[in-house]
């Protein structure tokens, strides 16, 4: 089980450089409760401009898995031809599951395939829902006892919109009372992280805000994570 409240971090495998990436992973040991390990994609469609650019900057991914629970994150669209490869990589890396943000939005008919592959490779199911989702789907996902359901708070990573996100988290909480809920997209401050947990999230994921700092200075990035972690522990 993931820690409650939990701090999650989105990493893009091998970014911004092999060296910095390895430093960061090492520095987060004991600080970060779980990881989403992004697979560089030619079309990271749910990402904002910053992470989009990052995807293009990765020349050689580094598949170092942190010690904390880790989930591979990619797009079903990219894996579509041979989805088993993705699950196999996750299993071989020791990841706990594969998160596919476009699965239920663009390929809802592939849910059963996903569950089957997950079972076959001994992984745990994890799901991504956008902020607006069918209630029946949320209940169905909850029933499959996933490690977590990730709710994307906005339309794309790193871009805050005037949306009352706590309300959406609360609604998902009511529909999936026993599921670990992760909230992410544009979580850029300790205060915001705390607000989301108060609204019902079990964990939050920091992506763009962490990567912006990481690009400048590993220590600054780790310090930011520590602040967020403190805010969560203080709750």
């Amino acid at each position: 089980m993931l820690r409650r409240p939990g701090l999650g971090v989105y990493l893009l495998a091998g970014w911004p450089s092999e060296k910095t990436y390895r430093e960061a992973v090492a520095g987060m040991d004991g600080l970060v409760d779980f990881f989403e390990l992004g697979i560089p994609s030619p079309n990271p469609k749910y990402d904002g401009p910053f992470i989009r650019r990052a995807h293009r900057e990765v020349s050689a991914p580094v598949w170092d898995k942190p010690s904390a629970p880790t989930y591979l994150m990619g797009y079903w669209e990219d894996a579509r031809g041979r989805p088993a490869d993705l699950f196999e990589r996750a299993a071989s890396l020791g990841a706990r599951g594969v998160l596919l943000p476009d699965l239920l939005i663009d390929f809802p008919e592939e849910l059963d395939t996903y569950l089957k592959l997950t079972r076959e490779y001994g992984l745990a199911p994890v799901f991504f829902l956008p902020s607006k989702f069918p209630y029946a789907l949320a209940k169905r996902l909850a029933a499959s006892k996933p490690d977590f359901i990730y709710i994307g708070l906005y339309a794309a990573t790193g871009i805050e919109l005037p949306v009352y996100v706590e309300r959406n988290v609360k609604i998902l909480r009511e529909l999936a009372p026993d599921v670990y809920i992760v909230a992410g997209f544009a979580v850029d401050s300790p205060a915001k992280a705390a607000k989301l947990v108060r609204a019902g999230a079990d964990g939050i994921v920091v992506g763009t805000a962490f990567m912006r700092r990481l690009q400048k200075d590993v220590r600054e990035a780790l310090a930011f994570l520590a602040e967020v972690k403190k805010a969560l522990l203080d709750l």
Partner: protein
Amino acid sequence: ESRIGLLTRILPSALIDQEFSAERWITVPEEVRDAYRRVGRPTPLLRAEGLERALGTGVRIYYKYEGVLPVGSHKLNTALAQAYYAKADGAVEVATETGAGQWGMAVSLAAALFGLKAVVFMTRSSYNSKRQRLTFMRTYGATVYPSPSEVTEAGRRHYRPDHPGSLGIAISEAVEYVLSGEKRRYLPGSVLEFVLMHQTVIGLEAVRQLPEEPDAAVACVGGGSNFAGFTYPMIGMKLRGEGFDKTRFVAVEAEAAPKLTKGEYKYDFPDAVGILPMIKMYTLGHDYVPPPVHAAGLRYHGAAPSLSLLRKLGIVEPLSYPQEEVMKAAVLFARTEGIVPAPESAHAIRAVLDLAKKLPRGSVIAFNLSGHGLLDSDAYEKFL
């Protein structure tokens, strides 16, 4: 700046929240309800007795009639809501683009009723040929510029006196106009989910008004707002097991822009020039141009994301018809029911004729007549 980020600077903020809200029910603000009442909501649900007699198939046909709204179509439902939220943001001016003028007219009236100034960029070819709607936008107090205009950078880039304009350029102009001044908001008429949601007032009323649950609920699809407005409340009830379990939902599009029947389910721009964020939808490509002879509306290249998903999941069945057949159905409807339908709405009528022949006697059909055609005499003149 990202396309999504741009939205926060041009749209009324409440609309962005609605676009991403997980709420099943979003309350219509008192002021909007009041405006709905004043413009004639609830609109009537009528039985098409004359059409039924003319068909003689023993099928009962009901239709919701949005043409009683002062601008003659359902577009006013979302325009009023959007204008209200713009005002709530402190805006004093709203801007938009329009082609044939239906949306421009709806925004012009909505702005007038909420005490806002409206600025409309109208494609120059329509500006020159659709004088009626242009005149009525001005009657409502709007400032209307032929696009490309000389009032924006985007317009000046394309400006020539004989440029026919395009919706894409007009959108760019409206967005630029909003960004270049204080207290301005942009009001989109197309496929955004909050537009569809505002239109559900149609179906919510219809659910209360229908004396019996239909075997088929039918509406035409341009971008999807009129279809969604009419059917989503019923589809919701069906999916939740609250009723309408035997109802089929039929989305009718023009053969000239057959996205649901022949389009691809993919990410595409909702606008022709790629200013707005891409959305996943059935689309013919954002640069799709319908055949030039086509005069019966529903020219849009894509269908709203939620509608596209419902079609993908088989909950909504798409049909398409060619213009000639649609106008024939329109004329039959005018002669038997008295109302001259908007050519767009006549697509739904055309499908109803087919369904009435195929369904067993005693079946029930309900459709949305999204507007009247009194401002579309050109389409009728061409056909007759």
